[in-house]
């Protein structure tokens, strides 16, 4: 039987009187790329932020790597978080640090030597093809480069699960495609599982093993790209036009 890494049951979240997530049920299997599609504002970011405990759900159960996120103490939660990579929509690079310092930041608690850490940083940057940017400040990088550095920082702790929040939004089609391919490459190389949130159909086609569509706080459709593309539901099909 396949191993389930993330299991979400009956997840509910409202902000004030605004119900964002109504009843989300999801499972992520080992080594799988799950794409979550949905309109802007449909609560996709809220969903993955719940998975890492950045947002506390109102109801429902989320278990990640066998641990129930809601029940963990701070230290335990931090241990789980170290096994999850999170690529933020804007890259979320630390403005006041160079690229090198950005990548060293997650390694701070690691008790290895300086040279070993340097080596890890260089490797991670090579992986995303940006070794030459190592001493630049984030403000000197383009949008695509920031995403890549963000990705390198996410990968540096070798996470078992990676959550991508709109990895290709705001990028030109060519860079988008490169990022999408990079996502596939990472999955192959490290056998990680990923959740990719997007409304970019091309990215979903390239990266997704399985797709889920969120509408009004619920999962309304699930399947492979070709299945959903030829769905009977007109609303679902309209995503792919």
């Amino acid at each position: 039987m396949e191993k389930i890494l993330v299991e979400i049951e009956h997840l509910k979240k409202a902000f004030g009187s605004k119900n964002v997530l109504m009843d989300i049920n999801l499972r992520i299997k080992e080594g799988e790329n799950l794409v979550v599609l949905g309109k802007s504002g449909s609560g996709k970011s809220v969903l993955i932020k719940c998975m890492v405990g950045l947002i506390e759900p109102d109801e429902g159960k989320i278990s990640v790597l066998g641990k129930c996120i809601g029940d963990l103490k701070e230290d335990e939660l931090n241990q789980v978080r170290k096994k999850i990579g999170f690529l933020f929509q804007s890259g979320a690079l630390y403005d006041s640090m160079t690229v090198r310092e950005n990548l060293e930041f997650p390694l701070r608690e690691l008790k290895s030597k300086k040279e070993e850490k340097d080596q890890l940083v260089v490797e991670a940057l090579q992986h995303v093809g940006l070794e030459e940017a190592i001493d630049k400040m984030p403000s000197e990088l383009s949008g695509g480069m920031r995403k890549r550095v963000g990705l390198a920082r996410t990968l540096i702790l070798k996470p078992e699960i990676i959550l991508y929040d709109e990895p290709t939004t705001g990028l030109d089609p060519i860079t988008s495609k490169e990022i999408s391919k990079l996502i596939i490459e990472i999955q192959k190389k490290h056998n990680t599982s990923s959740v990719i949130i997007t409304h970019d159909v091309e990215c979903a086609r390239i990266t997704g093993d399985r797709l889920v569509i969120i509408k009004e706080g619920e999962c309304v459709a699930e399947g492979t790209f070709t299945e959903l593309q030829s769905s009977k539901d007109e609303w679902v099909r309209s995503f792919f036009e």
Partner: protein
Amino acid sequence: MNPQPIVGPEAEKTPELKSPDNAASVFQPHSFPLYRFFLEVTLLTKFTARYFKEVLKPPYEFNELIRQCYLIGYKSFPLVSVTGFIMGLVLTIQSRPTLAEFGAESWLPAMVAVSIIREIGPVITALIFAGKVGSGIGAELASMKVTEQIDAMEVSGMNPFKYIVVTRIAAATIMLPALVVIADTISLYGAYIGVNLKGDVNVHLFLSQVFEKLAFIDVLPALIKTLFFGFSVGLIGCYKGYNSNKGTEGVGEAANASVVYASLMIFIIDMIAVQITSFMM
């Protein structure tokens, strides 16, 4: 309506996601100013408690603390020096005619020194500090929040409160007293020049006149209150920035609110401090 798969304000308009009632008909405690005031005070108190809890808990972020001391303290040095100098000079020039009327011109150095050290030095420097550092912290933290840098730190298993907030508040608390000492000194130099514009008092005479009238009770309470000034500038800047939740416009708002409330706090603390010192005297 045709479904629009891509971005747009459409998403916000989905009727099912809206509250069932008109907002006006629902009881909304958030719209009462008094409620908001008490809510804010409660949250600020919690924030302060968290600071004291985390500041004592190892591991300590010494490197970041030093960096913040440099950014907060050292970088404010020129501004504080210039204003300090002008403060001393102007206060001396302004005070001379009044003292001359009473034939007490020889009291000029002592009087100016006491005003500077007791009140004007700490308060003006703290207000400038609030304007420069408080707004800077507020804006910086709010923009870190908007660009998800704080979230990113949190998901990498770090404690952003400790790394970002604790270091800044501690640095502000440490650096403001130091800046006030510098500002006071430069201010006295400004006063010395002010005295010599129309008179002839050499440095030795000036200093002996100053220190004759300056007691320990002038210096120590003045320095202690600057610790509190520095703490509140750091605290309010961090609180406003860290809890900013409104996207890009929140950045300006946080910067603005930091300066306004920190300045207000400085006057309130000053008022409390003067009560305590006069009670002790």
